[in-house]
């Protein structure tokens, strides 16, 4: 029993940073209606940025947020403004411009391989002040770094929801996500809104980077691992849905942690795919997605 509860705790902790990673992806999708295939690479960039911050300054990994968050926001903002905007402008009549998927995949290849050229292929770890520390609640172990990750996820998701609901920019993002033509008629500069949404997506990837640094390896293709996971999570939860991304993340985390009690981790990976396909058949639009959505 204790083992199961501990496994559930681990699953929740892991699932929270999965969910946070997926949150950035789902926000971008919600607004622009295209998948950002470079999301995992942005996460990798965030991880390297946090890694070097901690490594060079010896700061607490969460202090690195001060630099990493604005850096990634600007990066995402510029990426959308420079590379994706011209495509959206050219494909005004297309509902889901697949060209964006390809461009973001190009960005993925470039970022991952630039990282490979600059930093080499080795796996890096950095010792931070919270690495390896634990917090005990009764008999149950909470690794501190992951517990902070859970809190960060909750705070970030809360802030994002608040931002979308109560700020002027947030409201224009939601308006543009409902109907991009109508929103632009209402005087919303849709491309600025897209830039901001993309910036937020990248910024969240940066936050995940800082969260992961104390307990995760950094390497150039680390993003790919999260890419596939995030895709599964957002489809599970329903593309564009914020609660869906968080719930999907926790579900995947729980599956991995509980099943790993009984089988090797490669098999738990398979279970995730099986659950994914099962959900696809039972509720194709995902747990929180709209049912009929062309």
């Amino acid at each position, binding site marked *: 029993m204790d083992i199961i509860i501990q496994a559930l705790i681990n699953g929740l902790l892991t699932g929270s940073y999965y969910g946070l990673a997926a949150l950035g992806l789902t926000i971008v999708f919600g607004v622009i209606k295209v998948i950002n295939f470079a999301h995992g690479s942005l996460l990798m960039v965030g991880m390297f940025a946090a890694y070097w911050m901690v490594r060079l300054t010896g700061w607490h990994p969460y202090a690195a947020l001060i630099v990493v968050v604005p850096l990634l926001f600007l990066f995402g903002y510029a990426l959308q403004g420079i590379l994706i905007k011209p495509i959206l402008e050219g494909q005004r009549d297309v509902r889901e411009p697949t060209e964006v998927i390809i461009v973001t995949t190009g960005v993925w*290849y470039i970022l991952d391989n630039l990282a490979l050229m600059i930093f080499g292929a080795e796996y890096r770890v950095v010792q931070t002040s919270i690495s390896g520390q634990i917090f005990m609640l009764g008999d149950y172990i909470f690794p501190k770094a992951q517990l902070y990750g859970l809190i960060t996820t909750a705070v970030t998701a809360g802030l994002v929801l608040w931002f979308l609901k109560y700020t002027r920019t947030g409201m224009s993002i939601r308006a543009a996500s409902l109907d991009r033509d109508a929103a632009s008629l209402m005087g919303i500069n849709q491309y600025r809104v897209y830039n901001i949404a993309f910036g937020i997506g990248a910024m969240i990837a940066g936050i995940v980077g800082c969260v992961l640094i104390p307990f995760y390896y950094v390497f150039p293709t680390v993003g790919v691992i999260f890419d596939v996971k995030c895709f599964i999570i957002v489809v599970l939860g329903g593309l564009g849905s914020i609660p869906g991304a968080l719930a999907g993340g926790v579900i995947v985390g729980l599956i991995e942690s509980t099943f790993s009690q009984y089988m090797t981790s490669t098999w738990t990976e398979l279970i995730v795919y099986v659950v994914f396909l099962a959900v696809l058949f039972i509720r194709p639009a995902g747990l929180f997605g709209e049912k009929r959505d062309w």
Partner: protein
Amino acid sequence: MNTGIQKRKTIDTTLKVLLVLFVFTVPLWVTSPTTLQILIFLFLYAYLTTTWNLVGGFAGVLPLGHSAYVGIGAYTSTVLFISYGVSPWIGMWAGGLIAAIVGIIIGIPTLKLRGAYFALSTMAFGEGVRVLVENTMQLGPFNINGPRGICVPLIPGNNIAAFQFLSKVPYYYIILVMLCVVLFITWYISRIRPGYYLAAGGEEPEAAQSLGVNVAKYKVWAMGLSCFLTALGGTFLAQLALYFYPKQILGLDFSFELAFIALIGGRGTIAGPVVGALILRPVSELTRIYLSAVLPGLHLVIFGLVLILVMLYQPKGLVGPLEKLYNWFLNKVSGTEKEVRT
């Protein structure tokens, strides 16, 4: 009809006939097995992207897990050959059938949804198949050997029934004929009702439905046909390489490569995937060979840049400008001023 147009037509036909003759006589004067092998792979890629294009181009969706079907084809024919001695020529049809059924089953729930779901679902499915194969040593009566992959047992000498040849020439002709057949199928479909319905449903599903098109049904059939033909290519790949393993034949990279070749060439066109393979394969091979020794990763940075530039400046693919160039050339040599519709 003026003489210029007549002349233009003659030149056009002559060039096309010459091209076909050229392609079919290559093994007569190219004897180097390495060169032939490169050409064979080129055609194999053209074949696989053309079959991808049946659903990815004409049905207007973005399948990102087609390596699963290549793998199904390769594994099915090979395990049947190993376990029961079934000729790969027969095994390939079994593989195609399984791939078609799997593709249809995956397509039914996902093709009804927004395109992004389909793209992500096919991708996750492809990865799921890879993970499954990598973790399975024994699948029912068949030994698939997990992550290490399997070898096609060698049969000494040329053996037509075993789909094994010492020379590269038979492989060259087999894949060339296969490529011609799928090009013909693509061309034929684009001219009949299902082709019109697929294209219409891909572009404006609601409008197509209101004109009497059961959009999802046509997409599902296209998916089935595409997966079937893709699996046949998988068997060919298995017989050509005689050894394959999950990371290579079922990998995400492979799926992406197939999609991107078609997209860069020009999705939804007949020649697009072939053009894409003809341009991209040599570029990616050469940059890989010459640059990866200098700076690992540089060739993929270049590939990424090419992807972005093509999408920014030729989002409909390279086949469009090439066609223009060819028409310009025809007009130049035949003296016709204005563009002529063919």
